[in-house]
């Protein structure tokens, strides 16, 4: 049923996924940081993860909740609601993205902010 090259393909995909995960894991910082909100690729706000608050993004198209050091999208006006179903984020570089509204919410730890400024 399955040929030798099929198995090679599956192993290659698994290896690439493992490498990409490892790369991300090594760069990860679990300390509390900032929440960065971007709309259309432009920075619209920076908020602290330490303060519990609700943020209205993009004139109310999305509502982000920061609670217990985690950021969670609680409301979106798009039909698919993928960003709302996604779990809360807290670690560095974790993000919530609402593609229809072009909203990016990303966690950033202060320690790595300079590197991010370069890659941005």
């Amino acid at each position, binding site marked *: *049923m*399955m*040929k*030798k*090259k*099929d198995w090679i*393909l*599956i192993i290659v*995909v*698994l290896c*690439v*996924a*493992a490498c*990409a*995960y490892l790369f*991300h894991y090594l760069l990860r910082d679990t300390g509390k940081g900032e929440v960065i909100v*971007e709309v*259309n*690729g432009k920075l619209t706000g920076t908020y602290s993860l330490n303060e519990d608050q609700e943020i209205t993004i993009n004139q109310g198209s999305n509502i982000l909740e920061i609670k217990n050091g985690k950021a969670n999208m609680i409301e979106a006006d798009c*039909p*698919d609601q*993928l*960003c709302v*179903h*996604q*779990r809360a984020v807290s670690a560095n*570089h*974790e*993000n*919530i*993205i609402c*593609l*229809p509204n*072009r909203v*990016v919410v*990303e966690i950033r730890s202060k320690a790595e902010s300079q590197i*991010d400024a370069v*890659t941005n």
Partner: protein
Amino acid sequence: MRHFDIFYSILQHFTGKKREELLEVRAAYFGVFTALALIFSYVESLIPFHIGIAGVKLGLANLIIVIALYKMNVKSAYLLSVTRVVLSGFIFGNLFGILYSLAGALTSLTVMALMKKNQGFSVIGVSVAGGVFHNIGQLIIAMLVVENVRIAYYLPVLLIAGLVTGLIIGITANEMLKRLVNLPVPCETAGRP
């Protein structure tokens, strides 16, 4: 190929038409494939499949695309794929959905067509590559749209998701192709599984 020849000789006997003139039969098959792909898109939209990861879904309609790739030719599979995405986008989704689906579907189909030419891969391997590259294509479009390269953070998740869904679709397509040997789709370059 014997089944094709018997089918054609019977059709020629009754219709008096040559093999090249049986375009309408091909059109009928294309219609059935399009309808099936749309039904599969609909069935998928009914299944709530949120596992905490944004955008991961099974891609049931890809099963029909894989079958079409093996039973018809590459050109028909492309036409079917674009028709399917545009129609299901208008019926079940929105314009953004069409853009992302098209990016995924075309990347996936291009890779699958190239892999099928290479004799070393079975339907399952072709389908796995299709699933993985579907997600890679969508990730690239997502990067361009939100102008943020850092969402490559999703890459491992999307690779594994594409692998698993590609495997499921591939195994199903393999079983279906085994049972569809006698399906005589009139097409010059129809492949055999």
